């Protein structure tokens, strides 16, 4: 039948992971947001998909958290050090850290996401090769670190360094219509939030669940992979991962989701 086009609103449902960790899936939007309320992508998924995320035993993304923990404790590189050697127990040292990324990095003179921070530690502190974009170990380690902030509200520090200029650049990119289909991020995630595009229920496109486990791909999907996929769907050229334009978008889009809990590893369709 005409399928999906029957309910247009995000569901009214509460996400409590393992009956313990309460997740904020609706928050008052930050000042300057086009929305009154920011909503998690979780609210737009089916009952079955939502249930997978609510139970960490069932959540396939938890395997990557476990793998991330292994890597955390493993020595690598010419310095023969592990992450744990400097940072100790991640459940203490990394608690809440992921909720504040991307973050200004004064030395690099640009915002860093966790991928860039990890690569910086690997190069400078471990004398190891930086991870290539979307290397399985990179995704696992980012997932592990983000998971230490499960439930913590996203809050980006826009007062640090030149974060506001990056936010502006990100905003401009967000509203730029691109590709042969002539769509901007806002065309789908703002103007048509809550509607169906073919089988897909359009969320606000927030970043609080990343990396997310995508059932369609049966894999963890990094944020820049998702951005690139959305851009490809407009038939525009895909910018490189961690390029200035995608970093600016990450700053801006993370800000749009201010107040939502980190859900990593979120489960999506």
């Amino acid at each position, binding site marked *: *039948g*005409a*399928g*999906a*086009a029957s309910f*247009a609103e995000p569901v009214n449902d509460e996400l409590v992971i393992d009956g313990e960790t309460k997740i904020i899936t609706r928050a008052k939007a930050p000042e300057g947001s086009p929305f009154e309320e920011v909503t998690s992508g979780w609210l737009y998924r089916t009952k079955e998909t939502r249930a997978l995320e609510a139970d960490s035993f069932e959540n396939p993304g938890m395997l990557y958290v476990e793998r991330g923990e292994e890597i955390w404790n493993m020595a690598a590189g010419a310095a023969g050090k592990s992450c744990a050697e400097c940072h100790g127990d991640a459940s203490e040292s990394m608690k809440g850290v992921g909720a504040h990324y991307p973050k200004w990095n004064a030395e690099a003179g640009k915002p860093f996401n966790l991928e860039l921070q990890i690569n910086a530690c690997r190069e400078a502190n471990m004398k190891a090769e930086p991870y290539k974009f979307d290397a399985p170990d990179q995704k696992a380690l980012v997932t592990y670190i983000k998971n230490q902030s499960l439930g913590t509200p996203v809050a980006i520090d826009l007062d640090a360094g030149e974060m506001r200029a990056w936010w502006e650049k990100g905003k401009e990119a967000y509203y*730029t*219509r*691109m*590709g*042969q*289909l*002539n*769509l*901007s991020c806002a*065309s*789908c995630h703002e*103007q*048509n939030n809550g*509607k*169906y*595009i*073919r*089988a897909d229920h*359009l969320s606000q496109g927030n970043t609080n669940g990343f990396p997310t486990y995508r059932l369609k791909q049966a894999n963890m999907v990094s944020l820049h992979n998702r951005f690139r996929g959305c851009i*490809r769907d*407009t*038939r*525009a*050229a*895909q910018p490189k991962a961690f390029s200035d334009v995608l970093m600016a978008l990450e700053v801006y889009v993370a800000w749009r989701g201010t107040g939502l809990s980190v859900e990593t590893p979120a489960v999506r369709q």
Partner: protein
Amino acid sequence: VLLGSGIALAGTMAPDAVRIEDMELSQPLTDTAGDPARGREVFAARKLGNCLACHANKDLSNELFHGDVGPSLDGVAGRWSPAQLRAIVVNSKTVLGEATVMPGFYSLDVGADVAEEFAGKTILSAQDVEDVVAYLTTLKQD
């Protein structure tokens, strides 16, 4: 069709030669009358019109998943003339307004940074558009 879209064939109007006036394009884009049966296929095919991404249409209820970004197209032939429907499909902005999210299917007025494989090309060929327009004119039932 041997040639890709965006290449002007004899008897075919090039995308930059199209003039839409007062929300109408009465002149067909090709010499070959539109085929509604083929238009129905172009309408549904994900790699062609993919119109179902945004529009529901009872005539295609055998196809799963109709989007609701745009209005249902049931009865659209009663709301717009063929010349208006052609203008909407060719370059939706000329009829529906600049802000519409509906792509222009035979227009080079596109977004930034078009991927190389699509640069200078239209989404549909001129004949595809004629076929889709012929199909739309059959959608009389509300």
